[in-house]
């Protein structure tokens, strides 16, 4: 289950920019049980999480809705105070020194905007410059780079309310990077975007990553974001880390499966091919499940040799399925 060792000492391990040690966040939830009575119930949104992220690393932080991702990010920005454990970002305790930390981090919430709704994009950037006291020359250079890489040129004079979701998201990402943050939190930066906008955002983030100066924590439901940007992925479920390692490891641990969908010339009984099991039959179409780590080629060859194959496609495992399986394994331990 990845790194579980806890490194101690206030000096830390030198290059860890983000360090969580046994962090918990407990919310009280009240439920009405009668006319005036209510019952208090504790919800452990984050339940003992420890991890470190080194300088310049880009780490995926994934999990189903309500797993505790946003709660973690809020504790990392200092908006929420942890109920237990310790959090350090760039050596700072976020909830104690939220404003001091704010100068050194950037945050992008896919579902929210930091931009001034009624005013041109440029005004929001000018505000960022003043807010973070960015030197004019450095601001100029950063803005030029973002405008260039994110195609913001024609949008600078447009009021934010007139931007499309994809344009607005690019605008938000630029706003989060103009002050050269050491740490960048991206909370679902590609949510709701079309394929082209997603590609643009990923390409830009890949450039940020290549520059190597920024530590990135990326939350997403889109496995492609993780595949293209992160060597390391952490999976959280029910407030606990259930995986911390590389993506291949995630598939292995999650025993994830791909599905080969085949169309035959006619209706057939469920086919029987080695290395796969038929999970569904619907008329001439059948679904064959096989391990994600295995190659599809021999399986396709086998099916084509033995049956009247008309068409086929391969479905990749959905991240939610992988996570669901991961959690299912944990529960059965």
């Amino acid at each position, binding site marked *: 289950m990845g790194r579980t060792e806890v490194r101690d000492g206030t000096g830390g391990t030198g290059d860890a920019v983000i360090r969580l040690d046994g962090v918990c966040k407990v919310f009280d939830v009240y439920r009405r049980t009668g006319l005036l009575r209510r019952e208090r119930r504790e919800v452990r949104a984050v339940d003992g999480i420890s991890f470190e992220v080194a300088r310049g690393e880009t780490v995926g932080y994934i999990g189903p*809705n*309500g797993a505790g991702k946003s709660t973690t990010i809020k504790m990392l920005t200092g908006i929420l105070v942890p109920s237990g454990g310790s959090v350090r970002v760039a050596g700072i305790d976020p909830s104690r020194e*939220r404003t001091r930390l*704010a100068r050194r*981090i950037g945050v992008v919430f896919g579902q929210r905007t930091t931009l001034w709704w*009624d005013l041109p994009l440029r005004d929001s950037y000018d505000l960022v410059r*003043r*807010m973070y006291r960015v030197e004019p020359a450095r601001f100029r250079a950063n803005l030029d780079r973002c405008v260039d890489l994110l195609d913001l040129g024609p949008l600078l004079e447009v009021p934010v309310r007139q931007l499309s979701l994809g344009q607005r998201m690019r605008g938000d990402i630029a706003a989060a990077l103009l002050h050269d943050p050491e740490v960048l939190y991206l909370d679902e930066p590609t949510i709701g975007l079309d394929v082209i906008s997603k590609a643009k955002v990923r390409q830009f983030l890949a450039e940020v990553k290549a520059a190597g100066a920024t530590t990135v924590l990326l939350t997403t439901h889109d496995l492609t974001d993780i595949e293209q940007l992160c060597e390391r992925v952490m999976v959280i479920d029910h407030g606990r880390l259930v995986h911390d390692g590389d993506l291949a490891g995630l598939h292995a641990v999650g025993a994830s499966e791909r599905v080969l969908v085949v169309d035959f010339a006619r209706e057939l009984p469920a086919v029987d091919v080695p290395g796969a099991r038929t999970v569904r039959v619907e008329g001439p179409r059948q679904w064959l499940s096989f391990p994600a780590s295995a190659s599809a080629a021999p399986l396709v060859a086998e099916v084509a040799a033995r049956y009247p194959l008309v068409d086929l496609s391969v479905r990749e495992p959905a991240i939610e399925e992988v996570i669901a399986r991961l959690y299912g394994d944990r529960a059965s331990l």
Partner: protein
Amino acid sequence: MGVYRAVLAGGFRRYATYRVATLAGVFTNAVFGMIMAYTYIALWRVRPHLGGYDETQAVTFVWLGQALLTTTALMGGGCETELINRIRTGDVAIDLYRPVDLQGWWLATDLGRAAFQVVGRGVLPMAVAALLFPLAWPSSPLVWLAFLVAVALGVVVSFAVRYLVALVAFWLLDGAGVVILSNLVALFFSGMVLPLTVFPGALGTAARVLPWSALLQVPADVFLGRAGGAAGVLGRLAFQAAWAAVLLGAGRLMQSVATRKVVVQGG
């Protein structure tokens, strides 16, 4: 300071964007101003020198009320609705991770809004009024200056109250009821319904010392030269400044409790 200046300027420009809305607002001001002016005239004909004002001063008071209606947010409509909405939806999280003080940010936004509205919704209705009614204008530039300071302090007091009201949303999650209550109180205790000098006894005394009198009654008294000489004017301004300090302080306190204790909504 540069940040807050930029936020203020942004607040100004945000409101300046909606010109048609401003013109529609001025029209509403003019209609309401006329209805109230004729009502006051009828009242003052029956009871001359009611509250110590002559008829011209009473009519001027009406139009000052219209001019300051949106500026000092006598019926609400400043930043509080937006802030409550941001607390409810969780967008306030974005305000909280900026390296800027939350109260300072919203004060600057509200001052920017007021700066626009004193021009857009203040000067224009007064100009309309000047064409239709004889008005009691200040006698010297110094009085104008004192009036502007009184309006500025009125905006700060108004903001400080509305900020407190908005922060309640951190606990109630829906601030609509509190806002309605707060607006009703502001409408009456600012002097928008009738000048506070008209009310007798304990109610009148209470109304004059409550913070809301800083929103309209005090600026109007300064404008109409009824504050009683330089010392009187300075006294009124000090009254406003004191309320501003107390209420902003209360806002800071409530803000630190809210941000430490309360959950920011939404994922």
